[in-house]
């Protein structure tokens, strides 16, 4: 009798943990869809899609609170240790990163809305689209690593974040050239610049998630100084023009 209650407790506990992980995966899927739709709304100048992205963001906030509630409840009632504790904490932190990602995607969609009233700047929009796809791919890769608990996948995302920076810096220069050549494009370019910044930050959240996965599985923190080729972290504006 005693045995079966005990087993029941263990199963319910494992179940609760699995539920939290599943909720994080679902939230990840939602964040991915938000990024993809935000980018599409910009490249297609689709105001309706942009509105949908903005409206759907509330769902991400709600899911994040739900995951946090479940995680805190689990910590309070079950007092998990070692792997289980790390899994719980990682889920909570990843949910926060995903919620922030959602906010950034919403902001991209909002700026897309403002852009759809202005003259289109096709080459710059293509650059944004390219950067967006890159960031979406990173987010997918890191979430795949999360659901499969695959450390190699997380490390791969973590060590390749300089591509996003490279795209951001190039876009920054491109925007400057446009704005200097034709001041009438300044409004559009300013929106595009903030979009690029938002996408870059989504990329950073993917890197954070990769770090959390590594922590969840190994218990060790990744070195905060990521390997970078070219050691180029200075904003373009502070560099000598080449």
């Amino acid at each position, binding site marked *: 009798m005693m045995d079966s209650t005990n087993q029941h407790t263990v199963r319910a506990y494992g179940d609760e943990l699995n*539920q939290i992980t599943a909720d994080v*995966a679902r939230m990840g*899927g939602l964040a*991915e869809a938000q990024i993809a739709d935000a980018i599409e709304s910009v490249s297609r100048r689709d105001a309706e899609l942009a509105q949908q992205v903005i409206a759907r963001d509330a769902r991400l906030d709600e899911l994040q609170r739900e995951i946090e509630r479940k995680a805190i409840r689990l910590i309070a009632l079950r007092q998990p240790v070692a792997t289980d504790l790390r899994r719980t904490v990682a889920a909570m932190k990843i949910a926060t990163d995903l919620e922030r990602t959602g906010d950034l995607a919403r902001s991209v969609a909002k700026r897309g809305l403002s852009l759809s009233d202005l003259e289109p700047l096709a080459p710059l929009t*293509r650059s944004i689209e390219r950067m967006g796809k890159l960031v979406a791919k990173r987010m997918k890769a890191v979430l795949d690593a999360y*659901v499969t608990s695959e450390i190699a996948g997380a490390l791969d995302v973590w060590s390749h974040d300089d591509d996003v920076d*490279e795209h951001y810096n190039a876009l*920054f220069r491109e925007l400057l050239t446009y704005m200097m050549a034709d001041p009438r494009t300044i409004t559009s370019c300013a929106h595009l610049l903030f979009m690029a910044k938002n996408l870059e930050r989504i990329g950073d959240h993917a890197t954070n998630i990769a770090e959390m996965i590594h922590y969840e599985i190994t218990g060790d923190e990744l070195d905060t100084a990521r390997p970078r*080729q070219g050691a180029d972290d200075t904003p373009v504006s502070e560099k000598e023009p*080449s």
Partner: protein
Amino acid sequence: MPETSLGHRASSRWKAALAAFRNWSPEAVSPPVLPLVDAEAGDFRAALESLPDPVLIVEGGAVGNLSARRILFANAAARGLLKVEGRGEPLVAALRDPQALDAVDAAIYGEIAGETTYEPAGAQDRFWRISVTPLTAAGLGRKMAVVRFRDETDSQRIERMRADFLANASHELKTPLASLQGFIETLKGHARDDERARDRFLDIMAAQTARMSRLIADLLALSRIELSEHISPAGRADVARATTDVMDALAPLLAEHDSRVELVERPTDATVVGDRDQIIQVIQNLTENAVRYSGRGSRVGIHILGDLSLAEAQAPSRSDSARLALLTPDREGGVRYVLIRVVDQGEGLARENLPRLTERFYRVEGQKSGASPGTGLGLSIVKHIVNRHRGGLIVESQKGHGTTFSVYFPVTERRGVTEPG
């Protein structure tokens, strides 16, 4: 009637099997196998298994518990697409798309069939249509759904290719056509009797029309490659042989530019999975660019490195340069690569030009490419061919120090569909 009794026998087997499922807990070592194999009812499982479309059978649990939606069965195509085994994993581990999850919930809990689209972000753009149908085993109290994926990548691509082709062709042909028209009018008018001007104009017109036909040829090639981009090539090709072929073919261009191309190093085995003609096209476009943008009397070096891991293939080859991966394949464990590196001694590219290099018709401002400029599609074609081969493309460059393009191709077929365990 025999049909009835047969149906009855089959359904009692189902009942027993599904009861086993009901009692199965996730902690059990392995889940019971859904007995789609039934002597009387026919080999349903094998039939599903052999379908070319990915198919999943998903079971629901408590509505609020997402981790209870489990994949009871995944056929070979589904295991390949979603990287699952189909032995009771949570559905979200394989499929996170919010619309797909909603459709599954509607089928399981509302018994409503539905359709949605699924476009996973990856190196190859894929477009799937998902249909979800409730699967009700009457009286068993188990809620299940069948999820079927239909590949609609082809029709999506054809649609987009048509639009792109029309837009590109009309835009790019407008300028040379207008200039031809101008020359024709001049020739009909006051240049009619000026022999020198007439010869000069006809030469320009010949060059213009040659460029236009190159442009059309390249656009058609690009469209064809894009259409098959999601279908991996099947043959094998020797990269080193392809390189020497390209070097022979480029002899006239090299003579014109007074340049040299050297195969600096090659491995003993440089065979990759690939379409020989397309691999030649990649090497040719890269080498041709290197020669064109390097100025007269320059030297282009080609390095071929064999048997590299993905990390080794992606490692930088120069320390002081800007570097950008223009194409990165989806990660796949254990794949080895052959890498081809084309190193030129040209002016080099500014860092901010790198991301747009593979864009159609993109030209770096102020860059001179000699008397017969390319179509602006060369690198775009390279990128799409390499993507079809599940390879990667990296550029490294620095102003004043030349440019290095590296492409890598997988040596072995991409990991196929896992066998049912």
